[in-house]
Structures are given as C-alpha cells and as structure tokens.
C-alpha cells in the first residue's frame, strides 16, 4: 500500500482555498456505488444501516485506494498491461465530486479515471475485468484502464487524449439543453489539459451557449513530468477560466469535505441554469504518472510533504477527532474494501476471454442494436 504520513510539525500548509469545510449534509442523489454482496455484508456488520455522508466518503476513498494498490501489484505480475495511471493521493477529488453529482448527471473523464468509474457505480468486478482485458470488463476488454465506460450510468469514458473529453462534454450538455433535460455534465481533466486548444474552445462554446457543463480540473501540478509553472504562463487556473466569463471555484483537493462542498455548490449553480462553472481541485499524485514513469522530475521531499496531507488519513483523523469514527469502524471499512478488491480480482481472473472470432465486433452498429443509453 502507499503510505500516508502523519503531518509533521512545521509543514507548510497548502495554498489557501476559497471553499469552507462542508457542513455535514447529505449527498443530493449520489447513487451509492454498487458493491458485492460480501462487501455489503461486511459494511452492514460494522456500520449503521445508512452511514452518514462522511463515512461513505471515507469508505469510498478506501475502495479506490485498495483497488489501485491491487492494480499496481497486478501490473507487476503481468496481469494488467498497457498504460496504467494511478490516482493514489488524489482520491478526495473523485470521491467528493462523484458524491456531489446526481445519478442522472453525465460524466466525462480522463485516462486516470478508475476511481471516478467506481464511484459512478461501475462495479469493481467490471473495472478489474476490463483491466485484465476480459469480455466481462465494462468495455468488453476493448478499452482497458484508460477507457472505462458505462453509458447506462452516463459515464462516457475514459479518454486518453488530453483535453479530448471536453468537447464531448459540451456536446452532451448541448443535447440536454436542446432536449429540455435539466442535467449537469461533469467533465474531469487535469491541469495539463488547460494548455490544449480543446480546453479553450470548449470553455468558449460552453460559456457562449450557457451550457450546463461543470469543468472539474484536478490540478495535480504535473502534466506528466512538466510542472505547472513550466507549462502555463498563467498559473492561476481560476483566473484563466474566468476569462471566459465562467464562474470559478477552488478547493483543497486533499480534503474530501471541501471537494464535496465546493463541487456541490458549483453543480447546484450549473443545474439551476447559471451556465457552466469551473472548479479547480488542488491535489497531488503520490505515484508516478504511469507504470513507465521513473518519476525523476519531482523532488522526493515534495512528494513526502504532500503525503503528509494524504486524504484518507487526514480525513479519518478528523472524523475520529469529531467522534464520528472509531478505529474499529475504520478497520471494518478497510476490510470491506479489501474483500471487494479480492472478489473483483478473482472475478477478473476467472472471467473468460472474448473469442478472437469477435474481433471485428462493434466497429459499426449492427442493425437493430442499441445505440446507447442516452436515448
């Protein structure tokens, strides 16, 4: 597992954030992620019937963390191949954001999307099977780690072109507007995407047409190996977004409550017809960009410093201090996550391969086939 360190005395606080810590309020709709029967039983045994939001946030961060740690291990074992981009350290962003969205909202994500897919309700079995390249995967083994899809949950990938998802989000929101559907399309991307033309074109279109797009920038400070200040003339990302007359929000992306609160407010504004909004979540990835990255461009001390602010241990520490969490409950959540991961790994291992005879399937839509969950 990736260790998070307890904060040391004198460690510099992160840049100040506009958002205030969230009040203990319930997620508007946020369908709880689908879990295995075993997992559900484990949680039920340890936790109350409907755990409060804080505990669900914590449990979901743990699920992402344990799943990805297993992915790294399986990559080493050769079970998962291709590119694998881990989210370890950034879990508060996906967790706060996905809980702040409603079930009917659309999500377009990036190639670092395992956590977003999981919390959108894609089963860990289907995600793990996809990583293995199995037919039971959420993209039938055609996509892999970077292209997790579940259109029935309005999760439109898994996009491996930096900035590639932004115009798609604009189009999904345009379709909603033209069809009179009140819904938010959340588009997740990294700060690296903000140097792409697609970002500027999408912001302009969304603002020009007042489309219900929620632009969620997970600023982990490095576009692969290039630091923010080495790739952007304007490093204040909200200022950059604001130039398109878009409402901007900023939150500490290591603090899941701050993320939830901020994204909830931004989403509410978008949903109410206020046009697009931009949220910057300031975060950090603890691991390398991908499994091929030797991580030579960052100071080890910098990584250690951010690990001290790890989203799981800092949030669980807060909850304990607030009397909302006991160590037993934490261990129960962790055990449930581990059990879910073990079951998903078994499922993926045992799932059959798609026959090579089906290689050419789904290049085109067969006559009479479903064209997608959007209709």
């Amino acid at each position: 597992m990736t260790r998070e360190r307890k904060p040391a005395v004198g460690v510099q606080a992160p840049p100040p954030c506009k958002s205030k810590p969230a009040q203990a309020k319930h997620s508007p709709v946020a369908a709880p992620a689908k879990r295995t029967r075993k997992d559900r039983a484990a949680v039920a045994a340890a936790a109350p019937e409907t755990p409060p939001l804080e505990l669900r946030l914590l449990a979901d961060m743990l699920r992402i963390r344990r799943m990805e740690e297993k992915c790294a291990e399986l990559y080493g074992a050769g079970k998962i191949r291709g590119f694998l981009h881990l989210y370890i350290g950034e879990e508060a962003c996906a967790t706060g954001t996905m809980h702040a969205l409603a079930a009917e909202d659309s999500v377009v994500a990036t190639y670092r999307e395992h956590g977003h897919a999981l919390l959108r309700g894609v089963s860990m079995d289907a995600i793990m099977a996809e990583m293995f390249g199995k037919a039971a995967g959420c993209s039938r083994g055609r996509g892999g780690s970077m292209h997790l899809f579940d259109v029935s949950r309005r999760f439109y990938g898994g996009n491996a072109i930096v900035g590639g998802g932004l115009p798609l989000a604009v189009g999904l929101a345009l379709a909603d507007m033209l069809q009179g559907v009140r819904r938010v399309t959340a588009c997740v991307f990294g700060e690296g995407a903000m140097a792409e033309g697609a970002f500027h074109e999408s912001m302009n279109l969304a603002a020009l047409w007042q489309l219900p797009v929620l632009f969620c920038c997970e600023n982990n400070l490095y576009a692969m190996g290039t630091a923010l200040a080495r790739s952007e003339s304007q490093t204040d990302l909200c200022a950059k977004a604001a130039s398109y007359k878009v409402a901007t929000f900023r939150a500490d992306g290591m603090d899941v409550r701050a993320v939830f609160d901020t994204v909830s407010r931004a989403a509410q504004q978008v949903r109410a017809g206020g046009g697009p909004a931009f949220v910057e979540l300031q975060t950090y990835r603890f691991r390398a960009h991908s499994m091929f990255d030797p991580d030579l461009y960052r100071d080890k001390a910098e990584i250690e410093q951010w690990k001290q602010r790890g989203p799981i241990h800092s949030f669980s520490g807060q909850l304990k201090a607030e009397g909302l969490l006991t160590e037993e409950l934490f261990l129960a959540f962790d055990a449930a996550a581990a059990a879910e991961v073990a079951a998903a790994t078994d499922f993926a291992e045992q799932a059959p391969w798609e026959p090579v005879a089906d290689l050419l399937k789904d290049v085109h839509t067969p006559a009479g086939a479903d064209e997608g969950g959007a209709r």
Partner: protein
Amino acid sequence: MRISYREAMRQALREAMANDARVFLMGEDVGRYGGSYAVSKGLLEEFGPERIRDTPLSELGFVGAGVGAALGGLRPIVEVMTVNFSLLALDQIVNSASLLRHMSGGQCSVPLVLRMATGAGRQLAAQHSHSLENWYAHIPGIRVLAPATVADARGMLAPALADPDPVVIFEHAQLYNLEGELADDWRCDIARAAVRRPGTQASVFAYGGCLPKALQAADELAAAGIDVEVVDLRVLRPLDIDTIAASVRRTHRALVVDEGWRSGSLAAEVIARIVETCFYDLDAPPARVCSEEVPIPYAKHLEDAALPQPAKIVAAVKELLNV
C-alpha cells in the same frame, strides 16, 4: 426537375430538419451568413437559431460537440466549411467519433453527419485546395461519401442520418453550381458504387469532382471510337468492391481517377482491391490519374496542370488500350 447541386443539398437538409426534431445543423456561418457555399441559405429563418446553429471558428470544439450531442441523443449535422479546416478537428473525428463504439465495447453509437467541401480548381492555392478523402477513408468506424450528382446531393443525406455511426460527406466545391435533372426517384443507398455510363473497352473509376471530368473524357473517347464505362465510386468507405470488380470483369481494363495525390491515394487502394480480386480478368496493368505531387499552386495554368483533367484521362485510357 432541373436543379443545382447546391439546391439539391439544401432540399435534403430542409427535409431532414422537418422530418426529425433531433436533427440540427451546426457550423461556421451556416445561419445568418447562409453557409459559405450558400447551401443553408434560408434555413435559419425556417428553423431558428437553436437548430441552425452558428459556431465560432472552433473546429475541434464544435466537431467534438457534435460527437457529444450525438452521444446525447441528437442527430447532428456538422458542417466544417472545408476539408482543409477539418484538419483542426481531426482529433475529434479520428480519436472520438470513429472509436467510441468499439472502445466502449459497443455501448454507444455516434450518429453524427459531418459535411465538408473539398477539392481544388478555383485558384484558392495550397491551403484551400486539399483533397483528403482518402485520409478519412482509412479510418474504421466511419462511412465516407462523395456525392457527385444532383441526385446523390439530394439523396445521400437521409440515409447518412439514418446510419447510427459517423458519416463524412465530401461535397466537391466545383460541383455546387452543377445543374442536372433530378428524377422523381432520387432516393438512393449509401452502400453501392454506380455505373454512370456503360461501356465495353475500359472501366474508368472516379468520384466527386473527378466524375464530370471522367464523363467528359468518355464523350471525347467515344468520338474517337473508344467505348469506356464510367463508374462513380460514390461510397469511399467501405468500398463497393462488387460493383468495381463486376465492371473490370466486363471491360478487362481499369483506370482510376483521383484528385488526391498519387502516393497513398484512394486510387492506390482501389487498384490494390482490383488486383486482389480480379487480377486474372485484367488485360493490362491498372492505371491511375491523380494530382501531381505538389502543393496546389495559385496560378491557373499551374493549378490546371496539377489536377486530373479530361485530357489526361483520355491519354491514360488510350495508353491503357495501347492505341
């Protein structure tokens, strides 16, 4: 009814908009300006700015938005002013539209129609004279059409919109003023090539802006006593090899005319398919007339020399027949 290619296309758009509320047209200057080639003139007044949607000069953004709108349940027609500017949107066409169905394991289709003008011949110089149909015809997951007659201009849009997958329609800029008789039964498929002029001594395959040139060459050859068949490829992906091979089996000689550059051209693909499919039916090596391998120049005499012309087609047929 005598009608122009432009008017045929406009009628097709109007019919599509009127028949299906999911259809909308989006692109640069399609609304208030009336379309840079005046194809959508009058449609803004008829259907309003929501459905005849002017966009900023933002090809990547609005083509990608078309893909997203298609995912979201609509039937967008996205007009990219010309193929030259489509290069700015290539990422969304190649990395999103064509891939999404397969990459998602068949979960979503992208029922998007992309229209764009293509081709040279109007002294617009190198950056406004590309013929890159074969780039798009290389990509699995999309269908590529090249209407070259008023009937196809009128008839291809409806089946393109009915196709649940992305369709790219190339309208050769030299054809908009073309006039022709529109028969009552103009409805057509988007699967088959079409024999536009039957003949016996050689098959000339052409598409888009080269079709009228091939037909003119065929007239000149007929005057010289040479009877050639002219086949309009129409559908550039997937190629209708059955119609192509049937023609070769009748005439035993094949010439492909293509405004694209010779190297890696669509003509190269057509000839490869002919050789793979009916090599032993051939009485002569297949030949092609393509654009010269030079950026298309501005000066008229140089531009003319760079492009396929009826005289070049006539000469190539004669060489093929060894006359």
